[in-house]
Each structure stands twice: as C-alpha cells, then as structure tokens.
C-alpha cells in the first residue's frame, strides 16, 4: 500500500475491507459447493480482484448504476446486491435475484443499481453509455460504472462506447479490470498497447492505470473519475491491474500461466495484504477484523441456507417475462 496524503477515514477503509471479505468468502463458498456437487454453473471467479469494486463502490450510492460482466459477482456484492439473492439465483430458486432465470452471468438488481450483467465480452459498455445518457437527459447527478476485462478492450463495443461517451460527454466510468489474460491469451499477445488506459487518448478522455490490488490507489482514481462524471465533466477510463486466481472458468487448470507469474500473483493477494496494512497503520484492530470476518461467515451461512431452503422456480416461469404480455 503506497503512502498517500488523501487516505480515506478509518470507517471507509474498513468498509472497503468488509466488501473485499464478503467477496472472498462468498467466492470460496461457491467453489466449495460446486466441488461438492451441490451447485452446477459456469462460474468465473473474481478471487484476486476484490480491491477494485470495493474501493469504487464504497463511493457510490444505490442511485448510481452498475453494469458488469460474467466475471462480476464481486462487482455486484460490492455494489450492494444482497448475497442471499445471488445464492438463491445460482441455486435456481424462486427467491433468486432473477428467479433463477438469469444465473451467474446475468444477475440484475435495480434496487442496488445493478442494472445489467452481460455474458458477452464488451457488450456492457454501450449499455453503460445508455444509462449515463438517461441520467444526462434527466439532469441527474448519478454516475454509471461499467466494468470489463482487458480482453474486452480489443472488441469493437469498447471503441464505439468510448467514442460515443466522449462525443456526448456522458457521466460514465469505464473500469477495465486487467487481470492479464483474455480467456487463455496473455494480454500482450492480443493487445496493441502497453496499457489499456493508453487508448483513452484516442477518445479525448482521461485514462489512468493503477495498481488494482491497492485499494487506496483504486479509491483515489475512482474518486477523481466519479467527481468528474457527477459534475458534467464526462467519462474516464480506469485500468486497474490485477490477477484472477482461479483461471477463466472454474475447471480451467491454468496451463497457459507461467508458474512463477502465478505464484507471484498469489503472494500479492490483495485481501490479506490490505488486512495487514489496516492493522499495521492503526486503522483497525485484529479483533475488530476477526469479528467482521465472523459476521460475514455467518452471513454466508445464512445466505446458503436461505437459498437451499427456498422453493425451486416453477417451470411455468418459462412463459413469463418473455414479453410484457403473457402469450
């Protein structure tokens, strides 16, 4: 953690840690239940990327919009989607966020501002522009954060969205969570620039690259971007450098990742590192954090129980929500 003049207060710092811990513990439980054969789903773990959405969302309200992607449950939890609704969704229950009709790649929860989750690389960014356009047309101050990976910076939707957001000065923040691999392809093999943020220049918007495992660095970059968007200053591209520990998809053995790189990334796990930093710098006590972790474990237990105690979504639901009218 770099020493900074603009360190947020202890309450905010702990709030970031709480979100990171929620993300980590839910993720670990998803994987353990999948491995136990209790849940079947395509699961794109974001373990290792916890700091990014936590440090951003702690500065947002439920009125601000979030668009995320198939690797996005960390973004949702950080934004405030109740984990029990996510659990019930993944378990295919009628109490799920989307009644089991969306699944891990399509969770929506407008109450917390989680408007769209897409399973198509890059597709969230044009939609993020539209949410921001709605706010702009209505003269609102809310902002839209749209997340994507490094691979998405090579698809047309990224370029069209940055251009449109710039031309229309939309209150949107493009957050590239650069985890070094686009599926199985290393960043440099598929990307023509050294940093995704370099591409912001082409669209006349600020672009910054930060250490995505450093909550303070992410917090500071997001603060500037959010203020710019809220005050009508237009879009920002933030590239947060990070790593995902569990491959592209659970089951991915990661043969394409050099062992030394993987080991170094694991050693830089943002969650324990930030925890230690909080204690070392007097922002939180060890007992306080242990209590917080125990609370979140209990919350996960409750969420799992809620999910599996809930009724399965009835097959008749397939006819509902196709159109406004029921056929």
């Amino acid at each position: 953690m770099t020493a900074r003049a603009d360190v947020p207060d202890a309450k905010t710092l702990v709030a970031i840690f709480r979100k990171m811990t929620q993300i980590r513990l839910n993720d670990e439980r998803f994987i353990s239940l999948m491995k136990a054969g209790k849940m079947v789903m395509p699961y794109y773990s974001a373990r290792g990327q916890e700091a990014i959405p936590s440090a951003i969302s702690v500065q947002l309200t439920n009125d601000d919009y979030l668009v995320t992607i198939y690797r996005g449950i960390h973004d949702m939890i950080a934004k405030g989607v109740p984990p029990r609704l996510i659990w019930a969704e993944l378990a295919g229950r009628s109490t799920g966020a989307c009644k089991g009709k969306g699944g891990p790649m399509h969770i929506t929860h407008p109450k917390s501002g989680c408007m769209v989750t897409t399973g198509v690389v890059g597709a969230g960014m044009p939609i993020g522009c539209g949410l921001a356009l709605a706010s702009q047309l209505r003269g609102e101050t809310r902002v839209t954060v749209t997340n994507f990976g490094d691979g998405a910076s090579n698809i047309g939707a990224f370029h069209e969205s940055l251009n449109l957001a710039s031309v229309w000065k939309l209150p949107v923040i493009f957050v590239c969570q650069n985890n070094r691999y686009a599926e199985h392809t290393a960043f440099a093999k598929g990307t023509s620039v050294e940093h995704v943020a370099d591409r912001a220049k082409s669209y006349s918007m600020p672009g910054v690259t930060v250490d995505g495992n450093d909550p303070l660095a992410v917090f500071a970059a997001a603060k500037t971007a959010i203020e710019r968007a809220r005050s009508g200053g237009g879009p920002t591209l933030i590239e947060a450098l990070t790593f995902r520990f569990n491959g592209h998809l659970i089951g991915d053995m990661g043969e394409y990742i050099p062992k030394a790189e993987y080991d170094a990334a694991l050693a830089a796990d943002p969650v324990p590192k930030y925890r230690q930093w909080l204690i070392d710098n007097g922002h939180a006590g060890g007992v306080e954090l242990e209590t917080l972790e125990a609370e979140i474990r209990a919350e996960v237990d409750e969420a799992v129980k809620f999910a599996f105690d809930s009724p399965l979504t009835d097959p008749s639901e397939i006819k509902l929500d196709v159109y406004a009218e029921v056929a």
Partner: protein
Amino acid sequence: MNAQAKSTQVNTIQALNWALDDAMAADANVVIFGEEIADPEGGGIMKVSAGLSTKYGTRVRSTPISEMGFTGAAVGAAIVGIRPVIEIMLMNFVAVCMDQITNHAAKLRFMSGGQTHVPMVIRTMTGSGFQTGGQHADFLEAWFCHTPGIKVVMPSNPADAYGLLRAAIEDDDPVIFVEHLASYWNPGVAPERGKSIPLGKANVVRAGKDVTLIGYSRSMMDIPVVAASLAKDGIDCEIIDLRTVSPLDMDTILTSVKKTGRAVVVHEAVRSFGVGAEISARIHESLFRELKAPVQRVASQDSPVPFAKQLEAAFMYSHADIEQAVRSTLR
C-alpha cells in the same frame, strides 16, 4: 376516422414524422437518435425526422456511424425508463449490432426475472428494386421473429405506419419497426393523429370466400392488384395485412382460412426458413383436415439480392407468381 382525414392523402414519410412528433410531444421520455437524423445533418436519410431536432433539442441526436454503440445506448437508456426510438439507416446494418438486439434488448426482461425491460423501437428500412445490391436491400425480419422477446412490426401504408409506430413507442417491449423503401412516397389515407393501432393484430383489408392471401409491408403493394385481377375471373380473395409479423395474429389467420380453405403467403424476404414457412406450418397444424389445398408461399429467390436490373427482377417474386400460386390452390 373523420371525414376530413379521409379526404387527405399523405405519404409514409409524413405519417412517420407525425408519429415521432406526436409521441415526443406526448411523452418527455421519448428520445430519438440515429445517423444524420438531426436537422443540421439533414433530418434523416429519408427525412423522416425532419424538423424534430429543431423542435425538441437534445432529445433528437445524430450519432456517429456506430450502430453497436448507439443501439446499446438505447438498451441502457430504455431499462431506466427512457423510450428511445433509434434509426438504423438500412436493415442490413442490423448485422453489426445484432448482439445488442438479440442478446440484450430481447432477453433482459426474461434474464432479469422481469425486473427490467427494454421499451425501445428500432426503426429501419429496406427493399429491393433500386439496384443497391446484396448489402442494402434484404428483408431480415425472420431473424427477429426467431428471437423471443422482440416484436416485429411491418406497416404497408401511411395510416398504418403512423398508428403502429405510436403503438410501438408506447409498447413495453423492444420493437423492430421495418419500413419499406419503395412505398415511402406512395400516397395513402392520412392517419388520425393521436390514435395508435394495436400491435399483434392483423387487418383484414378485403373480405373474400375462395382463398386467403396473407402479406405485410411490400407484398401489400402487390396482393391487392393481383386480387383485383383475379376477381375478374370470379376468384374472390380475402386479404390479410399482418401489420405485426411477430407475435403473429393466428386468430385472424385461422378464422379466415377456416372459411376459405386455402391460403397463400407473400413476402419479399427470401423463401426458405421464412415467415411464410412459419405461417404455412401453423395453418397446417391447426386446419389440416379443413384445407382444400396445401398452403402456398410466394417469396424472393434464395439468393443474395443481385445488382443488375434483370437479375434483381429475377430475384423478386412477380404478380404472375402470386396469381399462379392462387390458381394452384384452386385446381
């Protein structure tokens, strides 16, 4: 419709312009965007939106040539209650933004478990006969009819264009609204302003007892001409203009075919795997024992739209093809 409106003739461009204007006046959430649609850029390639940016300011925006970007932006704005009406200049260009239409606009209501929906309209235009070749003239409605969650509306005349566009804008689902190039300038009865025509309801435009002719969009320029000619030979055709192609108004179709026992479907889109195939299948499934002849399809050839005039003519169905199809059901 009042007597004064009946006496007035307008074309489809004027009718659509009125529909957009009236919808924007009625609801501040209606915004329109697309390539060159604002007045400084000409008010749209067909001038359908002429005058509207001057009247409504930033609610009418010209976009970059960026269909994926602005179609996606319409999806995002729509899920929070804006009612975007976007213009995709030519129907073939939907191919560059299909992801936003079929993976997002069509599915967000379902995938979100009904928490969000996408009340947007995509206006687009197409039609062969202008030697524009293989990428500017396709009728691609079957792509969207095959996608649950989207409605497909294809008007054939100015009054329907007005009433259906108003209904499409008021509708809570995404609507592909397909306009037909060759009929833009055809005069027709003026619409009654302020009145929408319900989606999902076909229109029986001519009652008859011998055979049911089913069409929409372009084919409604041709079917009545052939029916009038056949009437001279004593063949009494019932004509249905689908207006909305998906969801299909099977009640109207089956009621008619039950009466006539014969049906011919006519469309400019290519024949195979098309709307005609679906309608034919559904009629056979429901009325097999009551049919006096197999349902016939009249459509364009299964090829890309060609450039040269004589090839283009060979691609399109002819009035003789419709007539022959009708006569084949009467043998």
